[in-house]
């Protein structure tokens, strides 16, 4: 389960710090802003996503790939035609990543992939709460889940957001990794907004992953709903 705090950056329109068992991300959203000329679209708003890594300098190729994935989902969810010629800026700073330690990749090529997928998963969930906090018009809700299938134990399914121990995380021998972003309408997961898979897998694996993702999404969304209930009572605290 993830833990999130909203409205923590005073000068942003919306912000959220989200921590899962093994990662921590802070997202700030500003918008609708006056864009630069090159961002100005005549009939809809532009969405700019910037992800900063937990160590080292600004968006590298690893983060740019994450930015593009985040932007495609946000483009589908934000009601862009409500803010023509405006800019919605999404800034994400990764605070903690399980592979931060020097040399923690341990020569396993899968670790490199895992690390960016863990970060992206947190960025997705955090940016949804931030968008709601910033009162940007959304078509629907979305929740992201990161699931892995291991090679041993006859393909066990693991929710990576719940693995707290770095050593355990390293010890897994992943067969495939799946990042699933599901759209939620009327309290039910209805649509796949993004499905990003790495590794070897077959149809049955994918069906299993989607089933697990739906369950995880419903559980996380219940969490988010109670978070918003609290947020709303804080927003209108002077009313009672």
């Amino acid at each position, binding site marked *: 389960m993830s833990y999130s705090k909203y409205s923590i950056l005073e000068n942003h329109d919306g912000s959220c710090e989200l921590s899962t068992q093994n990662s921590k991300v802070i997202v700030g959203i500003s918008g609708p802003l006056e864009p630069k000329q090159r961002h100005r679209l005549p009939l809809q708003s532009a969405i700019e996503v910037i992800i900063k890594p937990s160590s080292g300098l600004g968006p590298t190729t690893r983060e740019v790939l994450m930015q593009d994935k985040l932007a495609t989902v946000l483009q589908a969810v934000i009601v862009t035609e409500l803010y023509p010629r405006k800019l919605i800026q999404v800034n994400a700073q990764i605070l903690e990543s399980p592979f931060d330690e020097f040399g923690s990749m341990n020569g396993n090529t899968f670790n490199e992939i895992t690390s960016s997928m863990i970060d992206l998963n947190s960025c997705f969930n955090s940016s949804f709460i931030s968008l709601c906090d910033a009162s940007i018009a959304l078509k*629907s809700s979305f929740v992201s889940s990161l699931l892995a299938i291991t090679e041993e134990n006859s393909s066990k399914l693991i929710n990576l957001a719940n693995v707290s121990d770095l050593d355990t995380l390293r010890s897994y021998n992943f067969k495939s990794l799946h990042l699933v972003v599901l759209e*939620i309408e009327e309290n039910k997961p209805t649509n796949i907004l993004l499905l990003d898979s790495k590794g070897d897998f077959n149809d049955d694996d994918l069906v299993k992953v989607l089933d697990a993702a739906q369950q995880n999404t419903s559980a996380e969304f219940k969490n988010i709903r109670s978070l918003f209930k609290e947020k*709303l009572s804080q927003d209108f605290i002077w009313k*009672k």
Partner: protein
Amino acid sequence: MSVSEDSKNLIIPGDILACERDNQTVDIIGQGIYLSFENHLYNNNKLYPTHVGIENYTTKNNKVIATLDYNSKRYIPQQGDYVIATVTNNYSTHFLCTLNNFSSTVTLPYANFPQATKKNRPKYENGDLVYCRVKTVDTDLPAELECMDSETGNKDGFGLLEQEKSKHTAVLDCSLAYARELLFNDKGFPLLSDMVKKNLSFEVAIGVNGKIWISTASLLETLCVYKILSKCEKSNRDSILQIIEETVTEYVKE
């Protein structure tokens, strides 16, 4: 028949609205509810909520109005709103103003001042605060402000918020719902009257773009009013009187 009024449902984008569930016609849709062009054409006018808020149905002149109450920080101009604008630039026909930092600029034409003539132009400088009203909002143009009641041509309290001699002023940024409540619901939320009852003398101008301008006779009083207003934004209604009491004794000792 009618949608249960004051149904206090928490709505998150993607949820179904009570009016949709009960197949109730809504005549006017307000903030937070959106009818997309696509739904208008193909989806039987399906409405969807776009923000996190509480759905609210009211009936006025036999028309059902649906709104979603939510709080936010960034103001988007709406026709008829009272706002505090900051002058940022001036041209031969109009001032350029901002309502929010980094938001698109809005215009305040010289013709929208009382007794406007070609020769008679108001002398505002960059950085000045002006209390005005949003006259028109067009999707393809910057919003236009006015500094008078355009029906009567009267000044009606609009104009420059200037610091008079021996006065101390400050501007407080607050959330939009709080500013609206202070401006329009003085009976239900008597914070300002309560402050006056405590012998605080002050002048305020509230813009629904989340700005409150305060002017009092002394610096301590300005600080006191500023503190009360910002503390009350984050506390329960029951504790308002106590906050006023405490802050007044802290800053303006009798």
